[in-house]
């Protein structure tokens, strides 16, 4: 019963919204009723799904790049205290810089003919930090007594990283990738808004386009697709994290 509670709440809210729109004669460009949104969703589904696919592919490519770069840099910080001192402050700068603020610059650098590259780069910037900071913490989270044993057994620097610190970091890496993937999707959408170009017709562009044409129902339909995609991605990543932890711990 309690599992149904959120669905009941959603149904009640949708009904209230529908009734309010009809009773108060709210203009459709201002706030269309849920039935109109459902209709817009049905009519535009192929376009919206294709747009969602483009946004998702931007996010996934960005996640892969962010993952590789973040982990490589984190391993460098684990190998040398000097590199650690050099890299970590720069990583923080990346974290605190708002994507929207760098979007115009990256669009210029990527070349106006390749806005897709700029979108990926922006999403990479957003996804990078949680993975990097997870990896950095994880690489330092090895059991200190295991570290002592590695010293006792005369382990080399690379042996220590590959056989102790990286495996110890796996739970942190799983968590970092979960957060990073969610942010990559948000980053991709924000970057699309920032780019505002019709060249990459992702979900954000669908919303901008519908907004320009005062097709508010279509805007909300795009938002619904975006939300559904986010929820699905989150569920997938939770499942991956659980499976990964089970594999790591053996139970």
């Amino acid at each position: 019963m309690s599992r149904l509670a959120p669905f009941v709440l959603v149904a009640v809210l949708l009904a209230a919204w529908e009734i309010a729109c009809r009773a108060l004669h709210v203009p459709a460009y201002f706030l269309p009723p849920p039935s109109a949104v459902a209709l817009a969703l049905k009519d535009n589904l192929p376009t919206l799904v294709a747009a969602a696919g483009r946004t998702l592919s931007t996010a996934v490519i960005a996640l892969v790049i962010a993952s590789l770069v973040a982990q490589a840099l984190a391993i460098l910080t684990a190998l040398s205290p000097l590199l650690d001192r050099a890299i970590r402050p720069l990583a923080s700068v990346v974290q605190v810089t708002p994507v929207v603020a760098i979007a115009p610059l990256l669009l210029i650098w990527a070349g106006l003919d390749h806005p897709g590259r700029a979108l990926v780069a922006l999403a990479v910037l957003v996804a990078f930090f949680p993975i990097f900071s997870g990896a950095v913490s994880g690489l330092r989270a090895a059991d200190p007594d295991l570290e002592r044993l590695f010293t006792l057994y005369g382990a080399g620097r690379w042996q220590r990283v590959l056989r102790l610190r990286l495996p110890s970091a796996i739970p942190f890496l799983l968590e970092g990738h979960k957060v990073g993937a969610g942010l990559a999707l948000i980053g991709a959408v924000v970057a699309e808004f920032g780019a505002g170009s019709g060249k990459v017709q992702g979900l954000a562009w669908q919303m901008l386009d519908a907004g320009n044409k005062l097709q508010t129902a279509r805007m909300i339909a795009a938002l619904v697709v975006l939300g559904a995609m986010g929820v699905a991605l989150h569920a997938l990543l939770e499942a991956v994290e659980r499976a990964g932890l089970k594999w790591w711990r053996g139970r």
Partner: protein
Amino acid sequence: MIVAALNGVEVEYGPGLALGPLSLEIGAGETVALVGPSGCGKSTALRLLAGLEAPTRGSITRAAGRGETAVVFQAPTLAPWLSAQANVALPLELAGVAQTDAHRRAAEALARVGLAGAETKRPVQLSGGMAMRVSLARALVTEPKLLLLDEPFAALDEITRRTLADDVLNLWAATRPAIVFVTHNVEEAVYMASRVVVLTRGPGRIAADLRVDGPMPRPPHFRAEATFRATSEAVSAALAEGVAA
């Protein structure tokens, strides 16, 4: 023959002296218990013997080189992502032994501590006592000359402690490494050690160095014998004196 020795070592943590001055020689095949009140620096003394820490003053002699010294910590300290067998094989692999060879020797070491059949188990699937045995197997797999145990059974129940104490002595009888172990438990010290070194409260110095007579490994009912009781009394008295000093 001396396996390891502390020569007038002192260790400072921050402003104060944590240990010493302390001189202690560990002979080949000896089993030495270090007992003393909390904070007297017994674990520090153990880490000095292991070469995991350097003294502030004084020197350390170690005949047992790297790869000939093994440590067992209070917690089993196993890698959760590795099977029991892979955990035991780890020291060999780090020393460059080929994987198949290392795993074969690891399986043998597990069998010696009574864990044949548990090779593929992960640490999370083991009881506290079993995990400690894996830790012991990992320490023994390199056939060390010096085996250091830092309160190894402190977290276990009494029955498991006693079983493990006998197991350690039986394992000791096979290759006779020098053993130094830290414990809070006077009876455990007297049961397992041929020599009990009592430290004063911190900074730890030697309050007493007592020989424990009797055969090794211990015969059944050794705890009921007069030697055991008399030595336990003497160790307790030295401890009380060391705390008061």
